[in-house]
């Protein structure tokens, strides 16, 4: 479990070890099984991250789940494949990953609600093409202790090893990227501040007045 502070303010990038959890369509029930949702606080969710997948892999001939391998302890950058985070809207999924220590996710694609939930926590989700993700996952497997430097401006990840650093370009939509860079990802105050605009919008929605005349 990580002791790194949770994201706050402008997010320019992050630095840390990588951990790959390969496979397409990894849903949020797998990221955090439903029994861990019986709580009124997100504290303590780290232990539930991938709990069933980890148990399933405990005595597996291929070795334990990546989250249980000592070389990935304290990893900060998660590398995944296609449609990661599909299924349930539970924010408990990125909360569990964040509390485990994840500060950024790189994948081939993300489910939308999961992407939005990560953004709301200041955790960037960036995409790369299939070959780049496989290459990055291969590089992490070859040298799990290598440090990755992830940047949002421009979006890229750099593998810092003893030799020549390797760089992969990443993609992230302009809106989320700007929200992270400016710190607006935690935007409740901004939404609330638009009081006049909220009133104007409400005034043009007839159902808010029960379709009353005028």
């Amino acid at each position, binding site marked *: 479990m990580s002791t790194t502070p949770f994201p706050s303010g402008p997010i320019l990038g992050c630095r840390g070890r990588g951990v790959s959890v390969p*496979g*397409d*369509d990894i*849903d949020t*029930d797998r990221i955090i*099984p*439903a*029994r861990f*949702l*019986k*709580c*009124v*606080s*997100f504290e303590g969710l780290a232990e539930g991250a991938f709990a*069933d*997948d980890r*148990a*399933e892999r405990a005595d597996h001939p291929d070795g334990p789940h990546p989250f249980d391998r000592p070389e990935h302890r304290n990893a900060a950058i998660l590398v995944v494949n*296609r*449609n990661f985070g*599909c*299924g*349930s*809207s*539970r*924010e*408990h999924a990125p909360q569990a990953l964040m509390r485990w220590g994840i500060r950024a996710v790189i994948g081939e694609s993300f*489910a*939308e*609600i999961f992407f*939005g*939930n990560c953004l*709301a*926590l200041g955790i960037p989700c960036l995409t790369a093409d299939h070959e780049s993700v496989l290459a990055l996952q291969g590089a992490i497997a070859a040298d799990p202790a290598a440090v990755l430097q992830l940047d949002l401006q421009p979006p890229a990840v750099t593998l810092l090893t003893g030799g020549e650093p390797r760089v992969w370009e990443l993609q992230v*939509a*302009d*809106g*989320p990227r*700007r*929200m992270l860079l*400016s710190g*607006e990802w935690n*935007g*409740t*105050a*901004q*939404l*609330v501040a*638009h009081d006049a*605009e*909220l009133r*104007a*919008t*409400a005034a043009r*929605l*007839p*159902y*808010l007045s029960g*379709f009353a*005349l005028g």
Partner: protein
Amino acid sequence: MSAGTLYDKVWDLHRVADLPGGGSQLFIGLHLIHEVTSPQAFAALRDLGLSVRHPERTVATVDHIVPTTSQARPFADPLAEEMLATLERNCAEHGIALHGLGSGRQGIVHVIAPELGLTQPGMTVACGDSHTSTHGAFGAIAFGIGTSQVRDVLASQSLAMAKLKVRRIRVEGALQSGVYAKDLVLHIIRRLGVKGGVGYAYEFAGPAIAALSMEERMTLCNMAIEGGARCGYVNPDAVTFAYLKGRPHAPAGEAWDRAVAWWSSLASGPEAVFDDEVVFDAATIAPTVTWGITPGQGIGIDESIPTLEQTEPDERPIAEEAYRYMDLRPGTPIEGVPVDVCFIGSCTNGRLSDLRAAAAIARGRHVAPGIKAFVVPGSEQVAAAAEAEGLDAVFRDAGFEWREPGCSMCLAMNPDRLEGRQISASSSNRNFKGRQGSASGRTLLMSPAMVAAAAVSGHVADVRRFLGPPTDGAPSPTAPAALETAAIRA
């Protein structure tokens, strides 16, 4: 880029502001909350020193964690009790209506909001639950959100959102007897994939959609998210208005006429432009069953589990994972696969018409030996209506348990769950690994009538064999799937 669709019109009406980051601030007309994804949002609100901006546009119920056997308080599970008590406290503190246990209006959030007339055409609806897409059946733009966004909606009645593209899914023809909205949506997801809808809103249109009842439209839109589409919707029409008329929160009198005029004006017109269109033929769709670990791994009841060779190359790794997890061999016919548990209920298929369809199969038959079968009405109102027409007795006589309303075994946050490697025939929406409460439990998704057919057979069975006296001793054959027209226009 789409233009003139219902999605575009509702988006424009609800757009509060454009945000510097590039997204828009969208007003939320109806905010539904429940016990699982709201407690941390209320706590965050408190930390920020903010109040609920529109408590009168916020409606709560309790569904995920409630037991379906005894609902007496306090619950046997102290964590479940704490979650409900927290919701009760938060609603009382902020003046939010809570449809609690025994109120006559409690139930699964996506069942009660429509039946109370809260969900209406042209609204934006948000809820901390991915199956909020259900409400799109009314021509609302409805989507699931996370807890931080629940906090934002509580505080501002709005959200930061990026606009989606719009894909029209036209369904021509008519569904055959024994083929339901559940089969239709499982078929669509099978063809377009569980990632196919990412970045899109799905507009369901065409003669087969127009012919669906509101409850069937809810089943369809409910599972849009399983196809990756954050919201799915059907344009409002006479079927929508007939359903809404007279419901507790629906407009009445002269306001009703003004409402119908406004709702009608929002439907996608003939001039509407879509980002993408896909066409299906309803007549070619068979009762559909999932065999794997994603809702896209579905096949017709008369088909066999696809082999690797029959699977697209990039879908092979998840197919192999599914063979292992499900312990089902490729090439095996899905009909005849034995089941242990049969579950009828959920926000997908826990409404009165679902229970009627299942009861029609159960009537005069009996659950096969060794099978645990149970029926969980989607709400207290559904339960009362079903009991008034004797469906509870039909199910009990057939050996099904008749339970109290809740989410039940759809997601296993309550005592209803699979044990060990049990395999379920389930009318719910997700067959993910471990979804139904056992880390090795297995789920076959199908329509409620198909679940009932499986319960009385002891194995996956073709519901069409149970419907009326067959004219030639066999169910009507279905056309090969290859005849289906699934033309995608960019």
